């Protein structure tokens, strides 16, 4: 059963209080995305071990490392130390978020989510440190996989503090859309893991293992694309005419998946070229620019868009779940609590 106070709060008792959490959570999300981008750059440039120690930087306190040496020193040091500093900032903002949530977030699960986010960010930091101290690519892989999940969690907190979450009415009966989105979320995470394996492939791997990861990555990509298009067709169908708040995120997902497929092809070409070089003049003449700017941006863009797809899938799933269970949850709310909630918010 729903805790009455939770339910009342979940329906949004005080919008101004919760909007503070919303803003801080949005701030964390906005900082986490460039952090993921920077982390991707660390992998693309194999800069994970550009600094041999942790939590210090070449024996310095991380925050006291000379700025000029950082900014004008080796490129891999610039990227790795920058990643660490930005991660520290994200951690700091997450701490503030937790305190803001403690004071202003009346919902228990909302507060737990914030603390969970802080825990996840700290764990990510420790994982990054362990990767350096052990010089283990496997840990780098896990660190790389968890980054987008932390970003998705931050986006999820933004979502549960958004106006939509608090005001969405029950408007969906269909279970198939929920399950499609649940499967989509799982698949985007599986895809993240597959992609991370391809990016962090260990040198001692046999070609057959890498090949199987590539095939799985392609298969999951097809499934994700299919599901996103199916979801989009569903939410724009006449059956969902009266349901608001789904078309936008679904359209975003369609846009993202199209970009992602293009970036995926681009990533392969800029990493390994096409195996059919005699396809046309362009491929026959194309020489990969190792560590080139365009190549790096394509590869990083692919990884970053993958993170957005996970967050986008979660976002849409939250909206659908909310529209599915809202009425059921509210149905359990005692009359006096429901009455205490502004009608505009309940609706």
């Amino acid at each position, binding site marked *: *059963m*729903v805790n009455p106070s*939770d339910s009342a709060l979940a329906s949004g008792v005080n919008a101004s209080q919760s909007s503070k959490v919303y803003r801080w959570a949005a701030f964390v999300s906005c900082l986490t995305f460039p952090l993921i981008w920077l982390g991707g750059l660390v992998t693309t440039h*194999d800069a994970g*071990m*550009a600094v*041999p*120690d942790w939590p210090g930087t070449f024996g310095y306190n991380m925050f006291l490392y000379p700025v000029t040496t950082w900014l004008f*020193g*080796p*490129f891999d*040091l610039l990227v790795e130390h920058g990643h660490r500093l930005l991660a520290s900032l994200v951690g700091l903002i997450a701490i503030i978020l937790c305190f803001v949530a403690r004071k202003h977030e009346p919902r228990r699960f909302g507060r737990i*989510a914030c603390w*969970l986010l802080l825990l996840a960010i700290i764990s990510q930091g420790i994982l990054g440190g362990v990767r350096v101290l052990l010089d283990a690519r*496997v840990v780098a*892989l*896990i660190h790389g*996989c*968890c980054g987008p*999940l932390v970003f*998705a*969690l931050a986006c*999820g907190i933004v979502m*549960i503090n958004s106006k939509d979450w608090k005001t969405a009415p029950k408007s969906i009966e269909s279970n198939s859309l929920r399950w499609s989105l*649940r499967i989509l979320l799982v698949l985007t995470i599986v895809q993240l*893991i597959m992609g991370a394996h391809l990016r962090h*492939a*260990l*040198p*001692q791997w*046999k*070609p057959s*293992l*890498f*090949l199987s990861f590539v095939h799985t990555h392609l298969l999951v990509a097809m499934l994700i694309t299919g599901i996103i298009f199916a979801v989009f067709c569903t939410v724009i169908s006449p059956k969902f005419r009266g349901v608001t708040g789904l078309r936008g995120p679904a359209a975003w997902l369609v846009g993202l998946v199209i970009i992602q497929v293009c970036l995926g092809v681009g990533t392969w070409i800029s990493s*390994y*070229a096409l*195996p059919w*070089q*005699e396809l046309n*003049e362009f*491929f*026959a*003449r*194309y*020489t*990969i*620019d*190792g*560590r*080139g700017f365009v190549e790096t941006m394509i590869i990083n863009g692919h990884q970053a868009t993958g993170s957005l797809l996970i967050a986008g899938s*979660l976002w849409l*799933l*939250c909206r659908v*779940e*909310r529209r599915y*269970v809202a009425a*059921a*949850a509210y149905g*359990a709310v005692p009359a006096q609590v429901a009455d205490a909630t502004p009608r505009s918010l309940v609706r």
Partner: protein
Amino acid sequence: MRFAQSPIHLLNLGNVSLLICSVGILAAGCSKPSFEANRLAAASFLESQDQQKVDELAGSVGELVEQVFGPPDAPKWPENAPTAVDMAEVERCAGPVGRAYDKVERGLYRKHCVQCHGITGDGAGPAAALLAPYPRDFRRGTFKFKSTSIGSKPLRSDLVKTIEHGLPGTSMPAFGALRNRPEFEKDIESLAEYVVFLAIRGEVERRLLKRAVDSEETPSLEDAKRVAASVAELWVNASANVVEVPLIPDVPPAEYAASVERGKALFTSDQASCFKCHGNEGKGDGVSQDYDEWTKDWTIRVGIDPASKSEWKVMKPFGALKPVVDRSRNFHLGGLRGGSTEQDIVKRIVLGIDGTPMPAITVSETDPNAFNLENVFDLARYVASLTGVKPETEAATDSGTANSAKGAQ
């Protein structure tokens, strides 16, 4: 119900289970990288697919080679062998990627090359199976694009050129961008040193395997050192095998057109026989298409038909990748791997491409059966005309016209 309101449980469950899966999948791949014994060569020399026999031979020789050259994280140069590589640079390229407190970057090979060429330099890195052509297996000691004669070792400058400019239409990137940053500017030369180290190491291993099969006894450490010295000697003396390639002269447009016509006639003549592989029109569709030497080593030379899957498959457990025909170039697409200028084409005609069916031709001004220089220039101009490369004089005229047009504007 409460769970249904909170999306967090989805993340929790997903996060934890995926982490467990990920760790599980990776557990098998956590071991420290090591040089792999050349089992494919062992199976080829033994002409046997008996796993135990092959592993025994490859393992014993592999251990010997490791004693002489060290493991991937701590390479060493064989005692008494002439110095063929700069070991300081080799050590900088070897081992895991990163910087120590001295801020010197290490592990360059694993940073830039290992995904395709593999730890051992066997051309069987994780991504190898998906690439066409396959990454080069350094262990044969054979390199395609060089300034030395067929069968000789390349110069450092040849390897540096390939690393710096890459190979168009292949997965070999151009690492020239490294020169743009002072901290990476010497990385290309360092990588070339490490490639030579791996090539020497691999060739020593192959020779020892051959010797072990021929003499039916495992070579000793002293044998290994002697072989290492002889292979290193070849690299030290590589410059003695440089072939002077004459410069192709600029000619007036009328003479150029006649030269191209003569080249075309030569191309389709039985004397040059270019058409047999490259096709009558240079589209790479000639009747004679063959495999490269790396493939022939473990297929045709040991009685395996590379075109028959049931036959070549027996070598798969030893690390063989599916044999692929080394198709002749379609000149119309351009992007020649040895370089697309007329001078580069002259060089390829004179020197050939080692390890492939592209032969080196004999140039003589006195022997009526051999090609003379003019023939070579005619052929080069014809091939260049197919790729769309303009002669320098014409290109200069074009740019001059363009410049004067800009000036006029």
